[in-house]
């Protein structure tokens, strides 16, 4: 019995962290699919989301309000960065990638400059721990998982069934043809940046609800988010979600069975294995946007 308890607890732990990583992976994969830019500063977007949440909660706001603020702030940041910087690298995605590397340093040090490099934490928004037949379940982890599931499901629905979602998928498939069909592709690119950034903002708010964060948390998170995006197939949003789920279960499993010091390695081992045997990811990715030569 006891082994099973630990197992379930670890799976929950694994899934709650994987939720945050999935939120990053979906943003990374959407932005790559449409622009060809791998935005490595996406982890810093998440960090900013966490910092905004910390500031808001420290200022006495409630956690839900802080989450909304984090989403709005990082979404706005994504809008400004896309219009101000990434827009000009669209023809050369590699430049966009390099710009994102520079942004990592800038965003980290803006936080250090205005505040400090120390760990920041907020009081747990939910402190209840349920005891279900001997299994101790922290409600805050369940909250993180449920919010992620709801948000990802909503994004999914938007992308698969709405007119805008169809136009978005068409733009991912072939940007030039989409434009000829009257789809304002540039506006969709901005939209995807804002959506991806807002998801990262949410991820940051959820992360600081689970753990303390530093201004340098972004690197680890984006590496895992990128690994998840690659495992699922870069550019494939379904793949990112499925791979996030797989990673959560694998990490939970490993932590529960005494390999916890290896937890961080699993995502990368999995990524390496998948790429060796299925170079386009488990669910097939895109090779980035098709552009006029």
């Amino acid at each position, binding site marked *: 019995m006891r082994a099973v308890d630990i197992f379930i607890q670890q799976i929950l732990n694994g899934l709650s962290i994987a939720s945050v990583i999935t939120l990053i992976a979906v943003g990374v994969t959407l932005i790559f699919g449409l622009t060809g830019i791998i935005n490595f500063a996406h982890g810093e977007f998440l960090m900013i989301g966490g910092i905004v949440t910390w500031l808001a909660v420290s200022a006495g706001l409630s956690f839900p309000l802080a989450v909304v603020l984090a989403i709005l702030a990082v979404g706005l940041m994504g809008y400004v960065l896309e219009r101000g910087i990434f827009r000009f690298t669209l023809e050369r995605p590699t430049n966009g990638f390099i710009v994102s590397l520079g942004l990592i340093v800038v965003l980290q040090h803006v936080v250090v400059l205005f505040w400090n490099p120390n760990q920041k934490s907020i009081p747990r928004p939910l402190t209840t721990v349920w005891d279900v037949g001997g299994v101790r379940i922290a409600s805050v982890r369940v909250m993180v998982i449920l919010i992620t599931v709801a948000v990802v499901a909503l994004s999914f629905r938007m992308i698969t069934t709405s*007119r805008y979602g*169809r*136009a978005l*998928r*068409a733009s991912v*498939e*072939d940007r*030039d*043809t*989409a*434009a*000829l*069909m*009257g*789809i*304002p*592709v*540039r506006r969709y690119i901005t939209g995807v940046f804002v959506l991806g950034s807002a998801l990262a903002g949410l991820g940051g708010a959820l992360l600081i609800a689970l753990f303390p964060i530093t201004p340098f948390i972004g690197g680890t998170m984006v590496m895992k988010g990128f690994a998840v995006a690659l495992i699922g197939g870069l550019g494939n949003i379904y793949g990112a979600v499925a791979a996030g789920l797989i990673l959560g279960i694998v990490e939970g499993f490993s932590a529960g069975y005494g390999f916890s010091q290896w937890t961080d390695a699993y995502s990368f081992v999995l990524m390496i294995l998948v790429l060796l045997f299925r170079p386009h990811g488990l669910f097939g990715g895109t090779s980035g946007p098709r552009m*006029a030569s």
Partner: protein
Amino acid sequence: MSPILEIRGLSKQFGGVAALAGVDLAVEEGEILGVVGPNGSGKTTLFNVVTGVHRPNAGSVSFRGRDITGSAPHAISRAGIGYTFQQAMAFAGLSMLENVQIAGEHVRAGANANTPWPTPQALLDFVGLTALADEKAGVLPFGSLRLLGLALALATQPALLLLDEPAAGLNDRETTALVGLVRQLPGHGITVCVIDHDMKLMQMLCRRLAVLDFGSKIADGPTEAVLADPKVLEVYLGGDL
């Protein structure tokens, strides 16, 4: 009657190369105009500049009397100019029907309101792809993709349709079918401008030809007259005739 599309002094440089060097061209409403010329003469660049894929360095393009020079591709599509690429164009991961649906969803009313194909199904019928409606575009043979490309362009309800080598890679039977379709378009209120270097095809389709060479127009007139023009024979056929 004033032309539906009027191109004046259009120039486009790529690096130091002038792909278009001051081209003037008028497309009259209801005609099928052919633009021919050897490889690298600027035909595709001409279409790319008109449809907003590239910005011109100089010159102007006006469509139905409105200046559209340098507008974004989606705006030009919504204004009523359809375009099919030289390569097959399709959204590979989506079904044929979805492809046509998307193409029709972002049309501004009024581009060509009396389209004879009000539904995606009607368009697939017209190009003869009804049987393949639910197939993913990515698995189709090239000939079908070509027809799908035509359906996509028509779904945007164009008043003017630009076709870039529509028959490239098609066999004789497919080419004949395509010619049959394109010839019906003026009857549906769609003016056509087609690029190709297949002279047999152009003779079947066009009563008027314009010839480009090194980015300049060297001839423009009735097909027979243009094909008999020694200047055209020299650049186009290497002076062998």
